């Protein structure tokens, strides 16, 4: 056993009638030159002096406030002593006695019972072991089935001690979810989540199964280069070693992005020729969208009648043979089929001169639902296809320790809502059935101020976020959310986050009631927090703890755009050829261009989507087959958008 030198006391607990020690707080003084500061963890050992009998009680605390003052009775005395000349004040032969006086909040007392005021003992800088004890990490760090996930390093007084979160409280089932707040532009929120995901993938306990992450990229190129190595300093690499997290980019990253309106170019910033092949187009058809029709309807639209008609469509019309009563038979599987269905019904009502009601549904309600549903294919063109098969996430085949990035940064807000609602619903559905392929999924959503504001309308997305945060932990569906202003996010979304992380905060934000529990000094520290440092609250920690985490091992969005600038959109033919060549390297672009030379873009898109979905052995042959078959059978389309209907009332739909 290696003998450790006796620690040197750096302070002493003092208690007065006005500022006594309590079971939750104590005060101590240190030398003027000391290594501790706000956020430092200290250990109080009861001093055993002449004739004293120590009880062996050990108290761990975190410094929450600091004071310095001298024996100067009033500032006026300093003025008098210096005869009104500040320069002379600095020349006084003796420096006044001064004190460094600290307030610390108790993290833990050993023994825990009976809970007593902090004794007047000596104060020591916490060691690695002390940090683990103080933060109650010993329970999940050294248990038979450890569940510790490193989140960063506690650094103070030359000490670098890893700080661990409990996976049971970060990813469920005891508690779950993580919320991170901080001002924008300091590369802290996204970086912290990237590092934490890497840490989770390395340390997620084997007995808890498999884990994956789904990240919504909602702005710029933030999450577009998770598979590319970023530049790390030696210091960062050393910290990775200390935390036992590989300093390497994610091994398995799958990118999904909708197509642009042209239906062939990807709507993402990850379009550099070296990287674009890894991006899978995300396209949904009617079948995928109709279950989330609620997302498409705003609050004014939602009424019992519209709801009932959507249910009718879903139950009686879609994906089955249906007779509309006017002699038309429908099998609605695409938006094009749906448009034909509505036209058949409206024409039938007009020509038959019947009333405004069709099978108990008023024609105005039907028009409203029709407009909303069909407009989605216009507003989210590229994500939602009028026709053709869908291209989706690999539901049921999620890989362990894989990141699935869904890039919706450039998608219409309605489309973003739809993507989010559907992706989360599918995750929940599969996790409930235990057939997703993994046992837990971390869903990362940034810009919570936008998606779950505290005072905004009750949107479907907000409801989904609430649902995850309140019930997700039982399923293994874990929300990692980020925002700039925590005070303006729905209280239940942030309140249900078992782990809360704070980067540098705005002073205005810190002045809001949610931060009243923090001392002024802690607030100042938060307002000036350097990049790479966070304040963490976790169920096992009785007080917030400051930790430092290394720069994430992946290429930051901004750097990625410098190294892999987005390619300009290719002409239609070239884009189609590139996609097919990517699927089969034997294909020559000219072959593709010849094939599609006399085809409409709609038909080419549909054929391409079919090939993407099927991934046949002979790509070109299948493409030719799909192109030929569907083009011959479909009548040419006259209009690309939903035509206006003859108004029958002032109804605005």
């Amino acid at each position, binding site marked *: 056993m290696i003998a450790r030198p006796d620690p040197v006391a750096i302070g002493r607990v003092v208690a007065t009638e006005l500022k006594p020690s309590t079971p939750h707080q104590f005060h101590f003084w240190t030398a003027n030159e000391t290594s501790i500061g706000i956020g430092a963890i200290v250990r109080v050992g009861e001093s055993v002096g002449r004739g004293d009998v120590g009880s062996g009680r050990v108290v761990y605390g975190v410094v929450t406030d600091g004071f310095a003052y001298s024996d100067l009775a009033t500032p006026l005395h300093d003025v008098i002593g210096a005869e009104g000349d500040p320069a002379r004040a600095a020349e006084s032969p003796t*420096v006044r006695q001064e004190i460094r006086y600290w307030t610390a909040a108790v993290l833990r007392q050993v023994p825990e019972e009976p809970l007593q005021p902090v004794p007047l003992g000596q104060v020591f800088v916490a060691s690695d072991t002390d940090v683990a004890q103080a933060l109650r990490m010993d329970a999940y760090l050294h248990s038979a089935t450890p569940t510790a996930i490193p989140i960063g390093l506690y650094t103070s007084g030359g000490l670098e001690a890893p700080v661990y979160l409990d996976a049971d409280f970060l990813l469920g089932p005891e508690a779950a979810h993580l919320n991170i707040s901080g001002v924008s532009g300091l590369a802290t929120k996204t970086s912290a989540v990237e590092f934490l995901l890497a840490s989770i993938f390395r340390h997620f306990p084997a007995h808890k199964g498999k884990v994956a992450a789904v990240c919504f990229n909602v702005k710029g190129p933030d999450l577009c280069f998770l598979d590319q190595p970023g530049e790390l300093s030696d210091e960062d690499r050393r910290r990775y070693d200390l935390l036992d997290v590989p300093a390497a980019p994610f091994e398995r990253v799958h990118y999904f992005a909708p197509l642009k309106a042209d239906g062939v170019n990807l709507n993402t910033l990850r379009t550099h020729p070296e990287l674009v092949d890894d991006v899978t187009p995300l396209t949904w058809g009617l079948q995928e969208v109709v279950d989330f029709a609620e997302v498409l309807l705003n609050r004014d639209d939602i009424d019992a009648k519209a709801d009932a008609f959507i249910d009718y469509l879903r139950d009686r019309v879609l994906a089955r043979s249906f007779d509309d009563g006017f002699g038309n038979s429908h099998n609605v599987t695409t938006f094009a089929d749906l448009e034909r269905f509505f036209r058949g019904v409206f024409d039938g009502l007009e020509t038959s001169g019947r009333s405004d009601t069709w099978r108990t549904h008023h024609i105005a309600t039907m028009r409203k639902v029709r407009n909303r549903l069909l407009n989605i294919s216009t507003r989210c063109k590229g994500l939602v296809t009028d026709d053709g098969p869908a291209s989706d996430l690999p539901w049921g085949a999620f890989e362990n320790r894989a990141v699935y990035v869904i890039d919706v940064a450039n998608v219409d807000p309605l489309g973003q809502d739809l993507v989010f609602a559907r992706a989360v619903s599918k995750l929940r559905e599969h996790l409930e059935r235990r057939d997703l392929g993994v046992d837990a999924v971390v869903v990362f959503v940034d810009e919570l101020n936008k998606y779950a504001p505290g005072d905004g309308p009750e949107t479907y997305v907000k409801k989904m976020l609430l649902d995850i945060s309140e019930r997700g932990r039982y399923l293994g569906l874990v929300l990692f959310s980020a925002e700039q202003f925590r005070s303006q996010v729905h209280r239940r979304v942030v309140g249900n986050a078992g782990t809360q992380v704070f980067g540098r905060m705005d002073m205005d934000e810190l002045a809001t009631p949610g931060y009243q529990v923090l001392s002024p000094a802690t607030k100042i520290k938060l307002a000036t927090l350097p990049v790479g440092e966070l304040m963490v609250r976790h169920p096992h920690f009785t007080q917030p703890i400051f930790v430092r985490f290394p720069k994430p091992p992946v290429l930051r969005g901004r750097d990625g755009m410098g190294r892999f600038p987005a390619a300009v959109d290719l002409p239609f033919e070239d884009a189609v050829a590139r996609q097919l060549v990517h699927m089969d390297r034997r294909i020559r672009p000219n072959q593709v261009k010849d094939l599609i030379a006399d085809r409409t873009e709609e038909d080419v898109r549909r054929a391409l989507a079919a090939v993407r979905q099927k991934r046949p052995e002979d790509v070109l042959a299948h493409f030719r087959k799909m192109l030929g078959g569907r083009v011959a059978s479909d009548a040419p389309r006259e209009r690309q958008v939903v035509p206006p209907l003859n108004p029958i009332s002032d109804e605005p739909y």
Partner: protein
Amino acid sequence: MTWWDALVRAGAVPAAYVPPASMGRTDADDYAEPGADLVEGDAMETFAVLRRPSPPACFLDGIEHWKVVGYDGVLPVVRAYVAAAVRRRGPDRRLRTAFEASREFAIAPLAGLAPERRRALEEHCPDVVDISIEEGTQPGRVLELARRAVDSARQALERALAERALARLGETEWLVVDGLLSVSGKLAGHPRALGVIKSHGAQFFSGADLERALTVPADTRTSVFRARGGHARNEVYSWYLRLWPWEGNDLLYGLLRIEARADDATIANAGATSGWLLAERAPIATPDMRWDRLLYPIHDVETYLKARAPRDLSASRTSRLPRTGT
């Protein structure tokens, strides 16, 4: 068990009386009626002093606390504590303790105590100072004798500490003592030892010289004189120095009397010495009431000693109403 507990067990009546004069110290000898011979010029003069940087220096002060802890009949038994310290000012202008000493002891008129009380005291207290009294001496007189015993113990401690400090003084370092320099031959003869006296019971002059000495303006010193007789057990040179303007306050406001070695060099350097002593008026030694004459480093030594003194010897801030309960 403390010795005063043992004393009470032996039949003494417990007491907790802190006499008003017990918390401070007096320069009793300063009240003697000495004389003085001018050694700088033929008549008492005043000289403007220019402030100058302080040399490296150590500062010495002492404290005394005592209280009555029991009575044997009407004879008080006193518990006393004296301490002294030398604090050295470093290049960072901060003071750190270089030497310190303390003594805790009992004072009692042993001959007047009942045998069992005397035995209890002598058995349990390792340091007892006996004061001899005549039969029938009033308790007040005993307390006055106790005060003198404490005073003299404190002075002895200070003297011993000062002599230790002198032996370890740096080549250019000064030792500034709170009080009389002349109490010690070694102190009085050292070229870089100064006594700083704040109380002015001793009157060295009369008539116009007295008036000139006591009305010396701020930033000004008087002529150097040889203090003789009375307190001056060892010959020293002395002069007055005014730190703060006294007009609008009191005649003795900001007035110090400095003692230094009786040597021509002292006269030659009186201006320079006064210059750096003048600089010592900042920082102000508040909240001490004597801040106008108390140099901050001396105040610092006193604060240090008080902070280390036994707390139960301090005068209680609570009233002396009879104790209630069990």
